């Protein structure tokens, strides 16, 4: 895999090599084992992926229970929302 192909995969599928097509993973790992530039590209991509993966704050137990109760109360409404 060339550095250009590696960068293209990063730009398209992000830094999680496990989510890349299986036939590209071995070539990417081989490049990473020998290229400091590729390692640097991956490091920066991992940081950016971390932002994109930021989880939404979870619901509090009270609010989750209230939402679930509201849904269950409305099950017999005739309309399809």
């Amino acid at each position: 895999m060339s550095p250009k192909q590696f960068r293209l995969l990063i730009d398209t599928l992000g830094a999680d090599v496990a989510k890349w097509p299986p036939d590209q993973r071995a070539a990417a790992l081989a490049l990473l084992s020998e290229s400091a530039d590729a390692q640097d590209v991956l490091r920066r991509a991992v940081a950016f992926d971390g932002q994109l993966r930021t989880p939404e704050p979870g619901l509090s137990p009270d609010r989750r229970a209230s939402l679930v109760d509201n849904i269950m109360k409305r099950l017999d409404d005739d309309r399809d929302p």
Partner: protein
Amino acid sequence: MSSESSPAGIALDGRIRSWADDVIAADPDGISSDGESDTALMLRVRDGDREAFRRLVTRHVDRIVGLARRVVGSAEADDIAQDVFLKLWARRSQWEPRTGAFRTWLYRVALNQCIDWTRKRKTVPLDGTPEVPDHADGPMEICDAHETAARVRAAVQKIPERQRIAITLYYHEDLTAAQVATIMDLNLNAVESLLKRGRKSLRVLLG
């Protein structure tokens, strides 16, 4: 199906489907700590079991509220989540375990609901959507998590709708490109193109 070429040159059309099917088939399908899978619960729901449905809703409501926050905005997220689960209940007899994982079906219903809300809303600005206060963590954690999540959410909501959906499913929901393609009813090349363009825009927006 789109005829866009793969930006990463990753796969030829002839083998995309089998790869996608393999990935979906490998989905653990939401087996929870209570030991009952989504599929098992959904089979009971199909027969009208309300307790099984309550467990499914409780298991997935945070996920759907979070997805709606990203795709539409915080102010509407609770209402969208309620409509999504009511739609699932109304259409429970249509669900077939052979047609795919429960989560795939759930995401499809949720995204269609998000798109409907976005189209109904027409001209409401997304960027200024107020935060709905709700705190599952302590004050400091809430502050940091809310600040980062709000910043990313604001950026995601500035990119085109299909890119926003693809990016949200791929990164926020941690699905594979093949799973995103199945949920969005696109081919893999089209999803890769959406991911590439979305990521490029977000890199600019998030600095």
